[in-house]
Protein backbone atom coordinates (compact mmCIF):
# COMPACT_ATOMS: atom_id res chain seq x y z
CA UNK A 1 0.00 0.00 0.00
CA UNK A 2 2.84 2.34 0.86
CA UNK A 3 4.54 1.76 -2.47
CA UNK A 4 1.31 2.53 -4.30
CA UNK A 5 1.09 5.83 -2.49
CA UNK A 6 4.73 6.67 -3.29
CA UNK A 7 4.00 6.16 -6.97
CA UNK A 8 0.73 8.09 -6.79
CA UNK A 9 2.49 11.02 -5.14
CA UNK A 10 5.18 11.14 -7.80
CA UNK A 11 2.70 10.91 -10.65
CA UNK A 12 0.47 13.60 -9.22
CA UNK A 13 3.45 15.86 -8.60
CA UNK A 14 4.58 15.40 -12.19
CA UNK A 15 1.11 16.35 -13.46
CA UNK A 16 1.30 19.58 -11.51
CA UNK A 17 4.97 20.22 -12.36
CA UNK A 18 4.38 19.87 -16.05
CA UNK A 19 1.35 22.19 -15.97
CA UNK A 20 -0.85 19.44 -17.42
CA UNK A 21 -2.89 19.47 -14.24
CA UNK A 22 -3.46 23.25 -14.22
CA UNK A 23 -4.26 23.36 -17.91
CA UNK A 24 -6.65 20.49 -17.60
CA UNK A 25 -8.45 21.96 -14.59
CA UNK A 26 -8.68 25.44 -16.08
CA UNK A 27 -9.91 24.31 -19.48
CA UNK A 28 -12.37 21.93 -17.87
CA UNK A 29 -13.74 24.74 -15.72
CA UNK A 30 -13.93 27.17 -18.64
CA UNK A 31 -15.68 24.73 -20.95
CA UNK A 32 -18.12 23.38 -18.41
CA UNK A 33 -18.67 26.92 -17.07
CA UNK A 34 -19.47 28.41 -20.48
CA UNK A 35 -21.88 25.68 -21.46
CA UNK A 36 -23.50 25.45 -18.06
CA UNK A 37 -24.07 29.15 -17.44
CA UNK A 38 -23.73 31.12 -20.67
CA UNK A 39 -23.88 29.60 -24.09
CA UNK A 40 -26.99 27.69 -25.15
CA UNK A 41 -27.75 26.99 -21.53
CA UNK A 42 -31.23 26.26 -20.20
CA UNK A 43 -30.23 26.44 -16.56
CA UNK A 44 -32.13 29.69 -15.93
CA UNK A 45 -35.11 28.72 -18.03
CA UNK A 46 -36.21 25.34 -16.82
CA UNK A 47 -37.33 26.70 -13.50
CA UNK A 48 -35.53 24.00 -11.60
CA UNK A 49 -32.49 24.35 -9.38
CA UNK A 50 -30.35 21.44 -10.46
CA UNK A 51 -27.05 20.67 -12.14
CA UNK A 52 -28.28 18.36 -14.89
CA UNK A 53 -26.91 20.75 -17.49
CA UNK A 54 -23.46 20.67 -15.92
CA UNK A 55 -23.48 16.89 -15.68
CA UNK A 56 -24.53 16.62 -19.30
CA UNK A 57 -21.63 18.83 -20.40
CA UNK A 58 -19.10 17.09 -18.20
CA UNK A 59 -20.20 13.78 -19.59
CA UNK A 60 -18.59 14.94 -22.86
CA UNK A 61 -15.70 17.10 -21.70
CA UNK A 62 -14.32 14.35 -19.45
CA UNK A 63 -14.60 11.85 -22.27
CA UNK A 64 -12.06 13.93 -24.24
CA UNK A 65 -9.95 15.11 -21.31
CA UNK A 66 -9.23 11.83 -19.62
CA UNK A 67 -7.33 10.22 -22.51
CA UNK A 68 -5.18 13.36 -22.60
CA UNK A 69 -4.29 12.83 -18.94
CA UNK A 70 -3.71 9.11 -19.09
CA UNK A 71 -1.89 8.94 -22.43
CA UNK A 72 1.54 9.53 -20.95
CA UNK A 73 1.20 7.33 -17.88
CA UNK A 74 2.86 4.19 -19.25
CA UNK A 75 3.65 5.19 -22.84
CA UNK A 76 6.17 7.76 -21.65
CA UNK A 77 7.81 5.23 -19.34
CA UNK A 78 8.00 2.77 -22.22
CA UNK A 79 9.52 5.37 -24.51
CA UNK A 80 12.17 6.71 -22.16
CA UNK A 81 13.00 3.32 -20.68
CA UNK A 82 12.22 4.44 -17.13
CA UNK A 83 9.86 1.49 -16.94
CA UNK A 84 12.94 -0.67 -16.52
CA UNK A 85 14.04 1.46 -13.62
CA UNK A 86 10.61 1.48 -12.02
CA UNK A 87 9.95 -2.21 -12.35
CA UNK A 88 13.32 -3.16 -10.89
CA UNK A 89 12.49 -1.21 -7.75
CA UNK A 90 10.74 -2.99 -4.92
CA UNK A 91 7.24 -2.67 -6.40
CA UNK A 92 5.03 -5.09 -8.25
CA UNK A 93 3.53 -4.36 -11.66
CA UNK A 94 0.11 -4.22 -10.02
CA UNK A 95 1.28 -1.54 -7.60
CA UNK A 96 2.67 0.51 -10.49
CA UNK A 97 -0.63 0.34 -12.38
CA UNK A 98 -2.79 1.07 -9.36
CA UNK A 99 -0.49 3.93 -8.31
CA UNK A 100 -0.89 5.57 -11.69
CA UNK A 101 -4.63 4.97 -11.69
CA UNK A 102 -5.01 6.62 -8.31
CA UNK A 103 -2.94 9.63 -9.40
CA UNK A 104 -5.21 10.26 -12.41
CA UNK A 105 -8.30 9.70 -10.29
CA UNK A 106 -7.10 12.17 -7.67
CA UNK A 107 -6.44 14.73 -10.36
CA UNK A 108 -10.02 14.23 -11.56
CA UNK A 109 -11.34 14.56 -8.01
CA UNK A 110 -9.49 17.87 -7.70
CA UNK A 111 -10.96 19.07 -11.01
CA UNK A 112 -14.46 18.08 -9.94
CA UNK A 113 -13.98 19.69 -6.55
CA UNK A 114 -13.27 22.96 -8.35
CA UNK A 115 -16.81 22.90 -9.74
CA UNK A 116 -18.36 22.91 -6.27
CA UNK A 117 -19.03 26.68 -6.60
CA UNK A 118 -21.53 25.79 -9.33
CA UNK A 119 -23.35 23.65 -6.82
CA UNK A 120 -23.27 26.39 -4.22
CA UNK A 121 -24.56 28.98 -6.72
CA UNK A 122 -27.44 26.79 -7.79
CA UNK A 123 -28.27 26.04 -4.16
CA UNK A 124 -28.66 29.81 -3.66
CA UNK A 125 -31.24 29.95 -6.43
CA UNK A 126 -33.69 27.48 -5.05
CA UNK A 127 -34.22 24.09 -3.50
CA UNK A 128 -31.66 21.71 -4.90
CA UNK A 129 -32.17 17.98 -5.01
CA UNK A 130 -29.02 17.23 -3.02
CA UNK A 131 -29.32 13.51 -3.68
CA UNK A 132 -29.33 14.06 -7.44
CA UNK A 133 -26.26 16.31 -7.26
CA UNK A 134 -24.34 13.80 -5.13
CA UNK A 135 -25.39 11.03 -7.47
CA UNK A 136 -24.30 13.12 -10.44
CA UNK A 137 -20.84 13.74 -9.03
CA UNK A 138 -20.58 10.11 -8.03
CA UNK A 139 -21.56 9.05 -11.54
CA UNK A 140 -18.99 11.39 -13.10
CA UNK A 141 -16.34 9.97 -10.81
CA UNK A 142 -17.16 6.37 -11.65
CA UNK A 143 -17.29 7.14 -15.35
CA UNK A 144 -13.94 8.92 -15.09
CA UNK A 145 -12.51 5.92 -13.25
CA UNK A 146 -13.58 3.68 -16.09
CA UNK A 147 -12.07 5.91 -18.78
CA UNK A 148 -8.88 6.35 -16.76
CA UNK A 149 -8.58 2.60 -16.54
CA UNK A 150 -9.12 2.28 -20.29
CA UNK A 151 -6.66 5.12 -20.87
CA UNK A 152 -3.94 3.52 -18.80
CA UNK A 153 -4.47 0.26 -20.62
CA UNK A 154 -4.15 2.03 -23.99
CA UNK A 155 -1.03 3.71 -22.71
CA UNK A 156 0.46 0.37 -21.69
CA UNK A 157 0.15 -0.91 -25.25
CA UNK A 158 2.44 1.62 -26.87
CA UNK A 159 5.38 3.90 -26.38
CA UNK A 160 3.76 6.69 -28.36
CA UNK A 161 1.54 9.10 -26.43
CA UNK A 162 -0.52 10.10 -29.46
CA UNK A 163 -1.30 6.49 -30.25
CA UNK A 164 -2.26 5.99 -26.61
CA UNK A 165 -4.56 9.03 -26.74
CA UNK A 166 -6.33 7.98 -29.93
CA UNK A 167 -6.64 4.40 -28.83
CA UNK A 168 -8.21 5.43 -25.54
CA UNK A 169 -10.68 7.64 -27.40
CA UNK A 170 -11.45 4.84 -29.82
CA UNK A 171 -12.15 2.27 -27.10
CA UNK A 172 -13.98 4.88 -25.03
CA UNK A 173 -16.19 5.88 -27.95
CA UNK A 174 -17.79 2.45 -27.98
CA UNK A 175 -18.92 2.76 -24.41
CA UNK A 176 -19.66 6.42 -24.63
CA UNK A 177 -21.88 6.46 -27.66
CA UNK A 178 -21.51 3.62 -30.15
CA UNK A 179 -23.09 0.88 -28.04
CA UNK A 180 -26.02 3.18 -27.51
CA UNK A 181 -26.49 3.62 -31.26
CA UNK A 182 -26.21 -0.12 -31.77
CA UNK A 183 -28.76 -0.84 -29.08
CA UNK A 184 -31.33 1.44 -30.69
CA UNK A 185 -30.81 -0.36 -33.98
CA UNK A 186 -31.20 -3.88 -32.64
CA UNK A 187 -33.78 -5.78 -30.66
CA UNK A 188 -33.92 -8.67 -28.21
CA UNK A 189 -30.88 -9.90 -26.34
CA UNK A 190 -28.39 -8.04 -28.53
CA UNK A 191 -30.23 -4.82 -27.95
CA UNK A 192 -30.27 -5.39 -24.21
CA UNK A 193 -26.61 -6.29 -24.16
CA UNK A 194 -25.69 -3.15 -26.10
CA UNK A 195 -27.84 -1.10 -23.82
CA UNK A 196 -26.17 -2.61 -20.77
CA UNK A 197 -22.69 -1.92 -22.17
CA UNK A 198 -23.41 1.75 -22.84
CA UNK A 199 -22.07 4.10 -20.20
CA UNK A 200 -25.04 6.45 -20.62
CA UNK A 201 -27.50 3.88 -19.32
CA UNK A 202 -25.66 3.63 -16.03
CA UNK A 203 -24.58 7.22 -15.81
CA UNK A 204 -28.11 8.54 -16.24
CA UNK A 205 -29.60 6.54 -13.43
CA UNK A 206 -26.75 7.60 -11.16
CA UNK A 207 -27.12 11.26 -12.05
CA UNK A 208 -30.79 11.10 -11.12
CA UNK A 209 -29.58 10.12 -7.66
CA UNK A 210 -30.43 6.43 -7.92
CA UNK A 211 -27.53 4.32 -6.71
CA UNK A 212 -28.04 0.83 -8.02
CA UNK A 213 -25.64 -2.06 -7.43
CA UNK A 214 -25.88 -3.00 -11.12
CA UNK A 215 -24.34 0.33 -12.06
CA UNK A 216 -21.63 -0.01 -9.43
CA UNK A 217 -20.83 -3.51 -10.69
CA UNK A 218 -20.70 -2.20 -14.25
CA UNK A 219 -18.21 0.58 -13.54
CA UNK A 220 -16.28 -1.46 -11.00
CA UNK A 221 -15.75 -4.36 -13.35
CA UNK A 222 -14.54 -2.15 -16.21
CA UNK A 223 -12.14 -0.34 -13.91
CA UNK A 224 -10.78 -3.64 -12.67
CA UNK A 225 -10.58 -5.11 -16.17
CA UNK A 226 -8.59 -2.13 -17.44
CA UNK A 227 -6.16 -2.35 -14.54
CA UNK A 228 -5.70 -6.10 -14.87
CA UNK A 229 -5.08 -5.78 -18.61
CA UNK A 230 -2.53 -3.01 -18.04
CA UNK A 231 -0.76 -5.14 -15.48
CA UNK A 232 -0.73 -8.01 -17.96
CA UNK A 233 0.85 -5.78 -20.58
CA UNK A 234 3.53 -4.72 -18.09
CA UNK A 235 4.23 -8.29 -17.03
CA UNK A 236 4.54 -9.47 -20.60
CA UNK A 237 8.29 -8.88 -20.55
CA UNK A 238 8.36 -11.31 -17.68
CA UNK A 239 6.86 -14.27 -19.45
CA UNK A 240 9.14 -17.21 -19.75
CA UNK A 241 9.28 -17.56 -23.50
Amino acid at each position, binding site marked *: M*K*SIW*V*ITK*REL*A*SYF*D*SLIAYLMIIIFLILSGIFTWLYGSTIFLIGQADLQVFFGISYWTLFFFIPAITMRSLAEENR*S*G*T*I*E*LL*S*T*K*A*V*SDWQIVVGKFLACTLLLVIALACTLPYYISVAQLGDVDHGAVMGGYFGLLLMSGMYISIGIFSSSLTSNQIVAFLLALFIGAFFHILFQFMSSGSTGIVGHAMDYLSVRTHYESLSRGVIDTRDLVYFGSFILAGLVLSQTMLSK*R*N*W*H*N
Partner: protein
Amino acid sequence: MAILIENLTKVYGEQKAVNNISFEIKTGEVVGFLGPNGAGKSTTMKMLTCYMAPTSGKIFLEGLDVDKDPEEIKKKIGYLPENNPLYTDMAIIDYLKFCAEIQGVEKSLVNQRIHKMVDMCGLNQERHKRIGELSKGYRQRVGLAQAMIHDPEVLVLDEPTTGLDPNQIIEIRKLIKELGKEKTVILSSHILSEVEATCDRILIINKGKIVADGTSETLRGQAQGKALIKVQIEAGNGAAIQKSLLGLATVESVKALEEKPDYFLVQSKPDLNSRKEVFDLCVKNGWYLMELTGIETKLEDVFREVTN
Protein backbone atom coordinates in the same frame (compact mmCIF):
# COMPACT_ATOMS: atom_id res chain seq x y z
CA MET B 1 25.30 -11.68 -0.99
CA ALA B 2 26.17 -14.70 -3.04
CA ILE B 3 24.67 -15.09 -6.47
CA LEU B 4 24.15 -18.41 -8.16
CA ILE B 5 23.19 -18.70 -11.80
CA GLU B 6 22.29 -22.07 -13.25
CA ASN B 7 21.86 -22.87 -16.94
CA LEU B 8 20.49 -19.45 -17.72
CA THR B 9 19.04 -19.05 -21.21
CA LYS B 10 17.16 -16.20 -22.82
CA VAL B 11 15.75 -16.46 -26.30
CA TYR B 12 14.45 -13.45 -28.22
CA GLY B 13 12.46 -14.87 -31.10
CA GLU B 14 15.02 -16.93 -33.00
CA GLN B 15 18.07 -15.46 -31.37
CA LYS B 16 19.66 -16.89 -28.26
CA ALA B 17 20.82 -13.81 -26.40
CA VAL B 18 22.07 -15.81 -23.44
CA ASN B 19 22.91 -19.41 -24.02
CA ASN B 20 22.93 -21.77 -21.07
CA ILE B 21 25.40 -19.97 -18.81
CA SER B 22 26.16 -20.91 -15.22
CA PHE B 23 28.37 -19.21 -12.70
CA GLU B 24 28.63 -18.26 -9.08
CA ILE B 25 29.55 -14.96 -7.50
CA LYS B 26 30.66 -14.79 -3.90
CA THR B 27 29.79 -12.07 -1.43
CA GLY B 28 32.08 -9.09 -1.76
CA GLU B 29 33.35 -9.94 -5.20
CA VAL B 30 33.60 -7.25 -7.85
CA VAL B 31 32.84 -8.99 -11.09
CA GLY B 32 33.15 -7.48 -14.54
CA PHE B 33 31.12 -8.68 -17.50
CA LEU B 34 33.15 -8.07 -20.56
CA GLY B 35 32.08 -8.67 -24.11
CA PRO B 36 31.47 -7.11 -27.49
CA ASN B 37 28.19 -5.35 -28.17
CA GLY B 38 25.24 -7.72 -28.21
CA ALA B 39 27.08 -10.43 -26.32
CA GLY B 40 24.35 -10.87 -23.73
CA LYS B 41 25.77 -8.81 -20.87
CA SER B 42 22.78 -6.53 -20.46
CA THR B 43 20.30 -9.36 -20.92
CA THR B 44 21.95 -11.30 -18.11
CA MET B 45 21.77 -8.23 -15.90
CA LYS B 46 18.12 -7.66 -16.74
CA MET B 47 17.29 -11.17 -15.67
CA LEU B 48 19.32 -10.82 -12.51
CA THR B 49 17.46 -7.65 -11.52
CA CYS B 50 14.01 -9.20 -12.07
CA TYR B 51 13.25 -7.05 -15.09
CA MET B 52 12.94 -10.00 -17.40
CA ALA B 53 12.27 -13.63 -16.75
CA PRO B 54 14.72 -16.10 -18.27
CA THR B 55 13.50 -18.53 -20.92
CA SER B 56 14.96 -21.28 -18.79
CA GLY B 57 17.39 -21.62 -15.94
CA LYS B 58 17.50 -20.36 -12.39
CA ILE B 59 18.93 -17.41 -10.54
CA PHE B 60 19.40 -17.42 -6.79
CA LEU B 61 20.47 -14.60 -4.54
CA GLU B 62 21.50 -15.89 -1.15
CA GLY B 63 19.12 -18.79 -1.64
CA LEU B 64 16.18 -16.61 -2.80
CA ASP B 65 14.76 -17.56 -6.18
CA VAL B 66 14.40 -14.58 -8.53
CA ASP B 67 11.33 -16.20 -10.02
CA LYS B 68 9.54 -16.63 -6.68
CA ASP B 69 10.57 -13.70 -4.48
CA PRO B 70 11.18 -10.81 -6.86
CA GLU B 71 9.94 -8.26 -4.34
CA GLU B 72 12.35 -9.41 -1.66
CA ILE B 73 15.24 -9.52 -4.11
CA LYS B 74 14.55 -6.14 -5.70
CA LYS B 75 14.99 -4.53 -2.28
CA LYS B 76 18.48 -5.95 -2.04
CA ILE B 77 19.64 -4.96 -5.50
CA GLY B 78 20.69 -1.57 -6.75
CA TYR B 79 20.52 -1.36 -10.51
CA LEU B 80 21.84 1.12 -13.02
CA PRO B 81 20.31 0.20 -16.39
CA GLU B 82 22.21 0.49 -19.62
CA ASN B 83 21.33 3.91 -20.93
CA ASN B 84 20.47 5.26 -17.53
CA PRO B 85 16.81 6.20 -17.95
CA LEU B 86 15.67 8.89 -15.51
CA TYR B 87 12.60 11.01 -14.91
CA THR B 88 14.00 14.11 -16.55
CA ASP B 89 11.25 16.38 -15.25
CA MET B 90 12.12 15.75 -11.60
CA ALA B 91 14.57 17.61 -9.39
CA ILE B 92 17.53 15.51 -8.26
CA ILE B 93 16.60 15.58 -4.60
CA ASP B 94 12.95 14.74 -5.28
CA TYR B 95 14.00 11.90 -7.47
CA LEU B 96 16.36 10.45 -4.89
CA LYS B 97 13.63 10.80 -2.28
CA PHE B 98 11.21 8.93 -4.52
CA CYS B 99 13.74 6.13 -5.03
CA ALA B 100 14.48 5.89 -1.33
CA GLU B 101 10.80 5.73 -0.40
CA ILE B 102 9.92 3.19 -3.02
CA GLN B 103 12.81 0.98 -1.99
CA GLY B 104 11.50 0.98 1.55
CA VAL B 105 14.16 3.11 3.24
CA GLU B 106 12.93 4.06 6.69
CA LYS B 107 11.38 7.49 6.84
CA SER B 108 13.79 8.78 9.46
CA LEU B 109 16.76 7.71 7.37
CA VAL B 110 15.62 9.05 3.99
CA ASN B 111 17.18 12.51 4.30
CA GLN B 112 20.39 11.14 5.71
CA ARG B 113 20.73 8.69 2.81
CA ILE B 114 20.03 11.43 0.26
CA HIS B 115 22.77 13.60 1.78
CA LYS B 116 25.18 10.72 1.75
CA MET B 117 24.47 9.91 -1.89
CA VAL B 118 24.76 13.53 -2.97
CA ASP B 119 28.16 13.71 -1.27
CA MET B 120 29.35 10.36 -2.50
CA CYS B 121 28.42 10.95 -6.12
CA GLY B 122 29.59 14.57 -6.17
CA LEU B 123 26.18 16.05 -6.89
CA ASN B 124 26.43 18.87 -4.37
CA GLN B 125 26.92 21.67 -6.88
CA GLU B 126 23.96 20.64 -9.00
CA ARG B 127 21.66 19.46 -6.28
CA HIS B 128 18.82 21.86 -6.97
CA LYS B 129 18.64 21.30 -10.69
CA ARG B 130 16.19 19.19 -12.56
CA ILE B 131 17.59 16.00 -14.00
CA GLY B 132 16.76 17.18 -17.51
CA GLU B 133 19.13 20.14 -17.09
CA LEU B 134 22.11 18.01 -16.19
CA SER B 135 24.99 17.03 -18.43
CA LYS B 136 25.46 13.38 -19.27
CA GLY B 137 28.14 12.85 -16.67
CA TYR B 138 25.99 14.26 -13.90
CA ARG B 139 23.03 12.17 -15.02
CA GLN B 140 25.23 9.13 -14.75
CA ARG B 141 26.03 10.16 -11.18
CA VAL B 142 22.34 10.50 -10.42
CA GLY B 143 21.90 7.02 -11.88
CA LEU B 144 24.55 5.70 -9.54
CA ALA B 145 23.06 7.56 -6.59
CA GLN B 146 19.60 6.08 -7.16
CA ALA B 147 21.10 2.62 -7.43
CA MET B 148 22.86 2.95 -4.08
CA ILE B 149 20.29 4.96 -2.17
CA HIS B 150 18.86 2.04 -0.21
CA ASP B 151 22.30 0.65 0.63
CA PRO B 152 21.77 -2.57 -1.33
CA GLU B 153 23.82 -5.68 -0.83
CA VAL B 154 24.23 -6.23 -4.55
CA LEU B 155 24.99 -3.54 -7.10
CA VAL B 156 24.36 -4.25 -10.75
CA LEU B 157 25.85 -1.54 -12.94
CA ASP B 158 25.41 -1.73 -16.68
CA GLU B 159 28.22 0.31 -18.22
CA PRO B 160 28.58 2.68 -15.28
CA THR B 161 31.21 4.97 -16.76
CA THR B 162 29.74 5.80 -20.17
CA GLY B 163 29.57 9.52 -20.75
CA LEU B 164 31.95 10.45 -17.97
CA ASP B 165 35.13 12.45 -18.44
CA PRO B 166 38.47 10.85 -17.48
CA ASN B 167 38.53 12.41 -14.01
CA GLN B 168 35.02 11.26 -13.28
CA ILE B 169 35.84 7.79 -14.58
CA ILE B 170 38.69 7.53 -12.11
CA GLU B 171 36.43 8.74 -9.30
CA ILE B 172 33.69 6.27 -10.15
CA ARG B 173 36.21 3.43 -10.34
CA LYS B 174 37.51 4.38 -6.93
CA LEU B 175 33.96 4.44 -5.65
CA ILE B 176 33.23 1.00 -7.07
CA LYS B 177 36.39 -0.43 -5.52
CA GLU B 178 35.41 1.11 -2.21
CA LEU B 179 31.91 -0.35 -2.43
CA GLY B 180 33.29 -3.72 -3.45
CA LYS B 181 34.88 -4.13 -0.04
CA GLU B 182 31.55 -4.95 1.56
CA LYS B 183 29.14 -5.40 -1.32
CA THR B 184 28.83 -7.66 -4.28
CA VAL B 185 29.26 -5.58 -7.41
CA ILE B 186 28.57 -6.71 -10.94
CA LEU B 187 29.42 -4.30 -13.70
CA SER B 188 29.55 -4.59 -17.43
CA SER B 189 31.75 -2.84 -19.88
CA HIS B 190 33.33 -3.20 -23.23
CA ILE B 191 36.31 -1.17 -22.08
CA LEU B 192 39.01 -3.60 -21.04
CA SER B 193 41.14 -1.30 -18.98
CA GLU B 194 38.08 -0.45 -16.95
CA VAL B 195 37.28 -3.94 -15.80
CA GLU B 196 40.95 -4.57 -15.29
CA ALA B 197 41.18 -1.57 -13.01
CA THR B 198 38.10 -2.28 -10.93
CA CYS B 199 37.25 -5.96 -10.92
CA ASP B 200 38.47 -8.89 -8.88
CA ARG B 201 37.15 -11.23 -11.46
CA ILE B 202 36.35 -10.98 -15.12
CA LEU B 203 33.78 -12.94 -17.08
CA ILE B 204 34.17 -12.60 -20.81
CA ILE B 205 30.87 -13.19 -22.56
CA ASN B 206 30.53 -13.71 -26.27
CA LYS B 207 27.46 -14.71 -28.26
CA GLY B 208 25.59 -15.57 -25.08
CA LYS B 209 28.26 -17.84 -23.67
CA ILE B 210 30.98 -17.38 -21.07
CA VAL B 211 34.25 -17.79 -22.92
CA ALA B 212 36.67 -16.90 -20.16
CA ASP B 213 36.45 -16.58 -16.39
CA GLY B 214 39.13 -15.52 -13.95
CA THR B 215 41.17 -12.66 -12.55
CA SER B 216 42.89 -10.39 -15.02
CA GLU B 217 46.21 -12.10 -14.14
CA THR B 218 44.98 -15.60 -14.82
CA LEU B 219 43.36 -14.52 -18.06
CA ARG B 220 46.53 -12.86 -19.18
CA GLY B 221 48.47 -15.94 -18.09
CA GLN B 222 46.33 -18.11 -20.30
CA ALA B 223 47.28 -16.13 -23.33
CA GLN B 224 50.86 -15.74 -22.16
CA GLY B 225 51.64 -19.38 -22.87
CA LYS B 226 53.73 -18.12 -25.74
CA ALA B 227 56.09 -15.52 -24.35
CA LEU B 228 56.91 -12.61 -26.57
CA ILE B 229 60.12 -10.57 -26.41
CA LYS B 230 61.39 -7.61 -28.29
CA VAL B 231 65.10 -7.55 -29.06
CA GLN B 232 67.39 -5.05 -30.71
CA ILE B 233 70.55 -6.53 -32.20
CA GLU B 234 73.05 -4.35 -34.00
CA ALA B 235 75.07 -6.28 -36.53
CA GLY B 236 74.13 -4.93 -39.92
CA ASN B 237 72.67 -7.94 -41.63
CA GLY B 238 69.06 -8.15 -40.59
CA ALA B 239 68.10 -11.15 -42.67
CA ALA B 240 70.96 -13.25 -41.29
CA ILE B 241 70.06 -12.36 -37.72
CA GLN B 242 66.46 -13.22 -38.30
CA LYS B 243 67.45 -16.55 -39.76
CA SER B 244 69.72 -17.54 -36.89
CA LEU B 245 67.14 -16.41 -34.32
CA LEU B 246 64.62 -18.65 -35.99
CA GLY B 247 67.16 -21.46 -35.79
CA LEU B 248 67.02 -21.45 -31.98
CA ALA B 249 65.32 -24.49 -30.47
CA THR B 250 62.91 -22.50 -28.27
CA VAL B 251 61.77 -19.98 -30.87
CA GLU B 252 58.54 -20.37 -32.76
CA SER B 253 58.51 -17.27 -34.93
CA VAL B 254 60.54 -14.12 -35.55
CA LYS B 255 59.29 -10.92 -37.03
CA ALA B 256 61.45 -7.98 -38.04
CA LEU B 257 59.89 -4.65 -37.14
CA GLU B 258 59.54 -2.62 -40.29
CA GLU B 259 59.47 0.80 -38.72
CA LYS B 260 62.63 0.26 -36.66
CA PRO B 261 65.72 -1.39 -38.13
CA ASP B 262 67.49 -4.00 -35.97
CA TYR B 263 64.36 -4.71 -33.91
CA PHE B 264 62.84 -8.18 -33.85
CA LEU B 265 59.78 -9.65 -32.17
CA VAL B 266 60.58 -13.14 -31.00
CA GLN B 267 57.81 -15.48 -30.00
CA SER B 268 58.75 -18.59 -28.06
CA LYS B 269 57.18 -22.00 -28.28
CA PRO B 270 54.49 -22.75 -25.65
CA ASP B 271 55.75 -22.61 -22.06
CA LEU B 272 59.32 -21.82 -23.09
CA ASN B 273 61.39 -18.68 -22.85
CA SER B 274 64.09 -17.68 -25.31
CA ARG B 275 65.84 -14.88 -23.47
CA LYS B 276 68.92 -16.88 -22.50
CA GLU B 277 69.17 -18.43 -25.94
CA VAL B 278 69.03 -15.07 -27.64
CA PHE B 279 71.73 -13.72 -25.38
CA ASP B 280 73.95 -16.75 -25.96
CA LEU B 281 73.42 -16.43 -29.70
CA CYS B 282 74.56 -12.81 -29.64
CA VAL B 283 77.65 -13.67 -27.60
CA LYS B 284 78.55 -16.51 -29.93
CA ASN B 285 78.28 -14.34 -33.04
CA GLY B 286 79.77 -11.24 -31.49
CA TRP B 287 76.60 -9.17 -32.03
CA TYR B 288 75.65 -6.26 -29.82
CA LEU B 289 72.49 -6.91 -27.90
CA MET B 290 71.11 -3.41 -27.38
CA GLU B 291 67.73 -4.22 -25.94
CA LEU B 292 65.78 -7.21 -24.71
CA THR B 293 62.28 -6.55 -23.38
CA GLY B 294 59.59 -8.95 -22.39
CA ILE B 295 56.20 -7.92 -23.78
CA GLU B 296 53.33 -8.44 -21.45
CA THR B 297 50.21 -9.81 -23.05
CA LYS B 298 47.46 -7.30 -22.81
CA LEU B 299 43.94 -8.14 -21.81
CA GLU B 300 43.01 -6.77 -25.21
CA ASP B 301 44.76 -9.72 -26.80
CA VAL B 302 42.96 -12.18 -24.57
CA PHE B 303 39.72 -10.50 -25.40
CA ARG B 304 40.34 -10.54 -29.11
CA GLU B 305 41.44 -14.13 -28.98
CA VAL B 306 38.37 -15.43 -27.14
CA THR B 307 35.77 -13.33 -28.89
CA ASN B 308 36.84 -13.98 -32.46
